[in-house]
């Protein structure tokens, strides 16, 4: 199965962690991105992710391959949700296994930073005041 995946159903982080299991790995670092109930001072009720699947899968795989080349890790996986999510839902999961913890921490951080900056996935936040808005990578609203 591909190392970068899009999911229309809830992500099972524990099951993904087991995919990383290896007798030669001494470290496993995972990151969970959760749906938060506020952004830039506004109350958020829910959100929806939209993706360009063909390009998102290709770019996600590229990021994981670059990460494996740059850091001394064994394996890296990432799953990103698409569709409608509620507060507290798991939106994105990243997991990295490595012989030692330094590389696992650094690679995990690198993957989530690159995913947020490069993969064609868009977040639409729905606010308590009834409005909604698409966001930029830094969390600020798109002008249009």
């Amino acid at each position, binding site marked *: 199965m591909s190392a970068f995946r899009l999911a229309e159903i809830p992500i099972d982080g524990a099951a993904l962690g087991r995919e990383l299991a290896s007798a030669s790995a001494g470290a496993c670092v995972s990151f969970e991105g959760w749906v938060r109930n506020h952004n830039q001072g506004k109350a958020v009720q829910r959100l929806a992710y939209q993706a360009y699947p063909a390009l998102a899968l290709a770019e996600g795989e590229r990021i994981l391959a670059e990460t494996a080349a740059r850091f001394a890790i064994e394996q890296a996986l990432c799953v990103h949700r698409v569709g409608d999510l509620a507060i507290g839902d798991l939106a*994105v999961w990243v997991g990295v296994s490595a012989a030692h913890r330094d590389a696992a921490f650094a690679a995990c951080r690198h993957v989530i930073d690159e995913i947020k900056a490069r993969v064609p*996935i868009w*977040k639409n936040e729905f606010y308590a005041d009834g409005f909604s808005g698409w966001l*930029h*990578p830094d969390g600020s609203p798109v002008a249009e």
Partner: protein
Amino acid sequence: MNYRLLYFASLRDRAGCAAEAVESDAADPRALYAQIAARHRLELAPEKLRVAVNGEFAAWDRVLADGDEIAFLPPVSGG
């Protein structure tokens, strides 16, 4: 030439559709975006967008071919 356009996020909302077929004399994505931005009243400047052609990132001056699938991508916000 005939192109297929894909829209995402704020551009999809503004265009009112996820995809459409267009016939255009635009030879590159820059000219094509100018045409569809005028037609759909898209307000995002090209400098804020990236281009993809046939499922891969592409340059604004890439020479388009008949049947190409083009997407203008707003700033991403996954994660």
